[in-house]
């Protein structure tokens, strides 16, 4: 069996960083990354990007050396992706924050509102309802992160955790401040509005969860396979007939429900910002599906049936 030689150069400076001899032809990029880490321990595999061309795309961990368009002496270019953090860690942190922060405002912990309001309780039912909904939403997200989602990527750049937490925690504090304020004004159309909005919220939460479960079942544990999602027996998943990312559709719906229920402008703004971001993601995902699968259902739109 002929062994390969692999030399790793810095993509920017072309400096020779590492030379590996006697590499098995069936070695994967993941294995090569592990070998590289031995000589440069500060660059753990998750922060390595190896490519065939200094400006080209990153090779995948699963790629096999002998299947790449290289001679028996392969030249790979290395790019440092920067400090990495696991997706699970980021999700847990960014979701635990809002859960905790909202409760600080709900219980009117001192130094938020005037001292005469410390630890008092709102006399509006909708305020208590809102706390239950908001808390349920983030508990659901935490549990899904731990038990439901199957992530394609292991890590993301460390700086993302600061960006993401600022966004989630900041908005949570801003919303919670007004909803739990002693001068909070309940919805204009009273119980009717609250009931309708709550129904929307609950339906969309169930819908969102159903989609997460359906997506999980598409992908066996530990794998990174991608398949076209289709409706299942669960009626909530029938939205797959019309959109590529019904999980985002339901998520926007949940927040619209919450906004109507609380009649709070900051909640509406949060919904709008979230909708914008999720639309960008949905369009990207939709495009990936179209590129990867010839037979992708033509009726589907990225996030809003028939429209967007």
């Amino acid at each position, binding site marked *: 069996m002929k062994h390969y030689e692999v030399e790793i150069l810095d993509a920017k400076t072309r400096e020779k960083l590492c030379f590996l001899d006697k590499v098995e032809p069936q070695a994967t990029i993941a294995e090569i990354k592990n070998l590289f880490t031995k000589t440069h321990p500060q660059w753990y595999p998750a922060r390595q990007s190896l490519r065939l061309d200094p400006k080209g795309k990153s090779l995948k961990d699963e790629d096999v050396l002998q299947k790449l368009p290289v001679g028996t002496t392969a030249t790979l270019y290395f790019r440092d992706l920067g400090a990495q953090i696991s*997706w699970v860690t980021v999700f847990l942190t960014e979701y635990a924050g809002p859960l905790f922060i909202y409760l600080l405002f709900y219980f009117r912990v001192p130094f938020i509102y005037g001292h005469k309001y410390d630890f008092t309780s709102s006399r509006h039912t909708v305020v208590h309802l809102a706390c239950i909904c908001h808390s349920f939403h983030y508990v659901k997200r935490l549990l899904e992160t731990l038990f439901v989602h199957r992530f394609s*990527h292991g890590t993301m750049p460390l700086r993302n955790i600061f960006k*993401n937490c600022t966004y989630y925690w900041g908005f949570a504090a801003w919303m919670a401040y*007004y909803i739990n304020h002693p001068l*909070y004004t309940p919805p204009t159309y009273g119980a009717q509005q609250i009931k309708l909005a709550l129904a929307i919220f609950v339906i969309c939460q169930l819908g969102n969860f159903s989609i997460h479960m359906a997506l999980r079942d598409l992908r066996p544990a530990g794998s990174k396979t991608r398949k076209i999602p289709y409706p299942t027996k669960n009626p909530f998943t029938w939205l797959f007939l019309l959109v590529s990312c019904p999980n985002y559709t339901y998520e926007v719906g949940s927040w619209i429900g919450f906004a109507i229920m609380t009649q709070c*402008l900051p909640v509406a703004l949060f919904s709008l910002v979230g909708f914008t971001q999720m639309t960008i993601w949905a369009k990207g995902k939709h495009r990936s599906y179209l590129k990867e699968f010839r037979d992708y259902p033509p009726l589907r739109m990225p996030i809003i049936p028939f429209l967007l």
Partner: protein
Amino acid sequence: MASSEEDGTNGGASEAGDEKEPSGRRRRLGLAATAWLTFYNIAMTAGWLVLAIAMVRFYMEKGTHRGLYKSIQKTLKFFQTVALIEIVHCIIGIVPTSVLVTGVQVSSRIFMVWLITHSIKPIQNEESVVLFLVSWTVTEITRYSFYTFSLLDHLPYFVKWARYNFFIILYPVGVAGELLTIYAALPYVKKSGMFSIRLPNKYNVSFDYYYFLLITMASYIPLFPQLYFHMLRQRRKVLHGEVIVEKDD
């Protein structure tokens, strides 16, 4: 903004500032785009020149800065507001600058003109107003004439020199003028409660313009050095041909 769920790897490079290629190669522009941009930049150069001359004439005739803002405000508002078009130029791609950077720069000018000097009349005669007006005027005349000559492929060295040297003084002077003006406006904002919404109200939101201004002033601290050092780096690249490898992209 939460990072992409779909792409865990490094997000798109964020542009710290100005044009990607200052005075060197330009992208191939269509005839219509070139014609329009040339017209636009000539018009803006002329506009700010008119403003400069009006300011000088006022001071020569009256010997004071009091009333100067009032006399030039219409011209200032017109030419500064029209600059919003530059955001569109970036969106449609005829100018190779980031939409975000241009948006921030133009917005901060619009903010100063409409939400500070126009809306808070008592501070219009502050000296700090003249400070930033002079800084803006010289900066814009230099900038727009630089763009004009670049488009005509006939850039005199002194214009390039001015573009990449004047800012060294003008930037800090302009920032000082803006900050001092906002600071002077604070007591009037607090007393009048302008642009503010209080609780309780139907939409359960509040906004305090006074605190908003304090936060705006604080935001100069991280933002100004970044912009300033970016211009310094551009200057070294353009004027001294230094090759600068960015830390990461």
